[in-house]
């Protein structure tokens, strides 16, 4: 089956990103396909490469990046929500005149249409939020 996942909360503050990650991993292990993971609201904060969490706990951002690389996942960060919260890739840096960018590996920034498409193209859409 093809799944799309929506993550509405940022790393550590809520369990949503953790549960979404565990679900996504379990779905892949069971042989399912992940069409897209779409990060919305504070969920866009899962896509910054500048976190430095304590070594003895999980690294939420890196975990998503690694899963993305291992399975060629499409991790999409909503551009409007990202602009509000300061998650920036090179394109956004240039477009908005910022002096740097912070997007984590394996993520890309795109529009809300990607969420609707994720719902249309997948067999199931599961939302993780608070």
């Amino acid at each position, binding site marked *: 089956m093809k799944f799309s996942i929506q993550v509405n909360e940022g790393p550590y503050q809520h369990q949503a990103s953790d*549960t979404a990650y565990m*679900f996504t991993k379990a*779905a892949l292990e069971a042989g*399912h396909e992940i069409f897209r993971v779409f990060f919305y609201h504070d969920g866009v904060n899962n896509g910054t490469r500048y976190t430095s969490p304590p070594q003895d706990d999980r690294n939420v951002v890196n975990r998503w990046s690694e899963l993305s690389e291992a399975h060629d996942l499409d991790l999409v960060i909503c551009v409007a929500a990202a602009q509000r919260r300061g998650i920036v890739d090179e394109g956004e840096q240039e477009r908005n005149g910022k002096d740097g960018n912070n997007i984590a590996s394996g993520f890309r920034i795109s529009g809300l249409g990607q969420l609707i498409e994720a719902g249309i193209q997948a067999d199931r859409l*599961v939302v993780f939020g*608070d």
Partner: protein
Amino acid sequence: MTMLHTVNKSPFEKESLSTCLRLSEDGSSILLIEDAIYAALEGTTTSDSIKNAMKTRKVYALQDDINARGVQDKVMDGIEQVDYAGFVNLVTEHDTVQSWV
């Protein structure tokens, strides 16, 4: 169409569970995850609402969230515990998923 309802907030923190119970149809399934697993405990002010729901809906709880919170010995009878693989299966077995956040 069969619906799987997921609830992730404690019934003592938010009304998400009670709204879910009010708006879920007979024959649907409810999966308690994250802090909502506290709704699966015996002897609380919300236990009866879950027991009532179980008459017409199947209620599941995510075992890993129960274990994390150290309340495995307090879970009421009739709640089927699943792991994340079981969570994935529940999603495939139902036509639609509705998350009550």
